[in-house]
C-alpha cells in the first residue's frame, strides 16, 4: 500500500501507470456516458410538469456534483504538495483547476438553459446558483494565479495556499449565501419542482454521475500527462517511454 503511494510520486512511474489506467478508463467512460445519455434522454419518462426540458439534469447535476468534488481534489493535492513537496501533487492540483472550472461553467450554462423554459428567465440570484458562480471565481483565481507566476514551483505553492484557504471558506460561503437568499425570497416559492425523484429517472442520473466522475478522472490524468510531457520534454526517461509506444 505505502510503496504504491510512494511510487505515485515518481513522474516516470506515474506516466506509465496513468497510461495503462487511461487505456482502460477511457472506454469505460465513453460507454457509461453513452448508456447514461441514451437512457436519460430517450428511455426515461418525461416529467409530468416540465415535459422533456427536465432532461438537461442528466448533464447539469453530474457536472455540478463533480465540479464541487473537483475543488476538494485540488485542495487536497495542494495540501499534499505544501506538506511533502511532492512534484506530482503540484501537477495534480494544476491539472484539476481548469477541469473543475469547465465543469462549473457547464453546470451554470445548462442551469441557465433549463431555467429559461422552466422559470422564464435565464438567471436568478438563487442561493445555489450564486454559490456555484463563486465556486467558478475560486477556480478561475487559482488558474490565473498559476499563470501569473514565472517560477512554476512557486506558482504551485501559491495556488496550494489559495486553494486551502478557499476550501476552509467554501462551507462558510455556502451557508452565508443560503441565509442571504432565505432573507430575500419568501420560502413559499420553491424552484425545484420535484420533491422526490422517481427511480426511473434516478437510475440514469446516478449512472451519469458515475460517468462524470470517470470523465473527471480521465481528463485529469490526460491533463497531468500533458503537463508531464511538457515539463520533462528534455529528459531521457520520457523520450524512452514515448519512443517505446
Amino acid at each position, binding site marked *: 500500500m505505502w510503496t504504491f503511494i510512494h511510487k505515485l510520486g515518481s513522474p516516470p512511474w506515474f506516466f506509465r501507470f496513468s497510461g495503462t489506467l487511461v487505456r482502460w478508463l477511457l472506454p469505460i467512460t465513453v460507454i457509461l456516458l453513452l448508456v447514461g445519455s441514451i437512457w436519460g434522454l430517450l428511455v426515461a419518462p418525461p416529467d409530468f410538469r416540465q415535459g422533456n426540458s427536465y432532461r438537461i439534469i442528466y448533464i447539469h447535476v453530474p457536472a455540478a456534483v463533480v465540479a464541487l468534488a473537483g475543488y476538494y481534489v485540488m485542495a487536497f493535492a495542494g495540501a499534499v504538495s505544501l506538506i511533502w513537496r511532492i512534484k506530482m501533487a503540484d501537477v495534480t492540483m494544476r491539472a484539476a483547476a481548469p477541469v473543475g472550472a469547465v465543469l462549473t461553467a457547464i453546470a451554470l450554462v445548462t442551469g441557465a438553459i433549463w431555467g429559461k423554459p422552466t422559470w422564464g428567465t435565464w438567471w436568478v440570484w438563487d442561493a445555489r446558483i450564486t454559490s456555484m458562480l463563486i465556486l467558478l471565481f*475560486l477556480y478561475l483565481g487559482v488558474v490565473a494565479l498559476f499563470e501569473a507566476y514565472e517560477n512554476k514551483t512557486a506558482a504551485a505553492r501559491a495556488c496550494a*495556499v*489559495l486553494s486551502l484557504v478557499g476550501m476552509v471558506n467554501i462551507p462558510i460561503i455556502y451557508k452565508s449565501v443560503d441565509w442571504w437568499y432565505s432573507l430575500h425570497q419568501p420560502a413559499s416559492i420553491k424552484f425545484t419542482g420535484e420533491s422526490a425523484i422517481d427511480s426511473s429517472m434516478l437510475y440514469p442520473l446516478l449512472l451519469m454521475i458515475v460517468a462524470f466522475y470517470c470523465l473527471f478522472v480521465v481528463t485529469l490524468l490526460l491533463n497531468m500527462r500533458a503537463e508531464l510531457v511538457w515539463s520533462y520534454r528534455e529528459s531521457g526517461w520520457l523520450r524512452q517511454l514515448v519512443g517505446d509506444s
Partner: protein
Amino acid sequence: MSSDRPLLSLRTVFLRQFLRHGRSIMTSPADVANPLLFFFMVITLFPLGLGPDPARLATLAPGILWVVALLASLMVSAKLFASDFEDGSLEQLALAPYPLAVTALAEVSAHWLATGFLLALVSPLFGLMLGLPEGGLLTLLVSLLLGTICLTIIGALGSALTVNIRRGGLLLSLLIIPLNVPVLIFGTTAVREAVLGGNPESWLALLGGLALGSLVVVPLAIGAALRVSLDS
C-alpha cells in the same frame, strides 16, 4: 546558528514590528487619507447615478456603504507588503528567528488601524448622507469595525500572494472577492436588520466569529504565501 543576543519574546517582536509599520504609515498621511477620499467620492457617485430620491437611497444605503468599503479595502490591500518587499525588509523578516505569521500580523494590524478602523469610524457620516435611518448607524459602525478586520486580513493574504507579480492588482481582486462574500453578506444583513427594527446581534456575532477565526488562521497562510513570494 549562534547569536550574541537572546531571542526576544513574541510580544516584543509584535509590538516593535507594529510600531515600525505604524511609523512608516505616519510618514505619508496621503496614504491614510486616500482610501477615505475614495470612499467619500464613490458614495457621492451613487446619488448621482441612481437619482436623489431619499427613500430609495435609504433602502440601498446598507449595500452601497458595504460594497464601497469592500472596494476601498481591496484598493489599499494591494500595496500592503509592496514597500517592504521592494526595500528588502521582508527578506530580513523572513530570515529573522521569529514566525513570519506574527510579524505579518503586526503589519496587518497597523495597516488596519490606518485604513479599516478609520473607515469604520467615519462611516456613520456617510450613512447619514445616504439617508440611512438613524437606527442603523451604530450597527453600521460596529459591523464595519468587525468586517474590516476580515477584509484587511484576507486582503493581506491576496497581497502576500501577488506581491512579486507585476500588475498583480487585477489578479488580487479575482483572488479576494470570492473569499469576501460571507463578510459582505453578514455585514449588509446586520445593517438592514437594524434599519428594519430587528435585532442585528446574531449577524454581528457571526461577523465577530469570522474576524476572530481569520485572525487565528489566515496569518499562517500569509506567512506561507510571503515565503512563496520571496522564493519565486
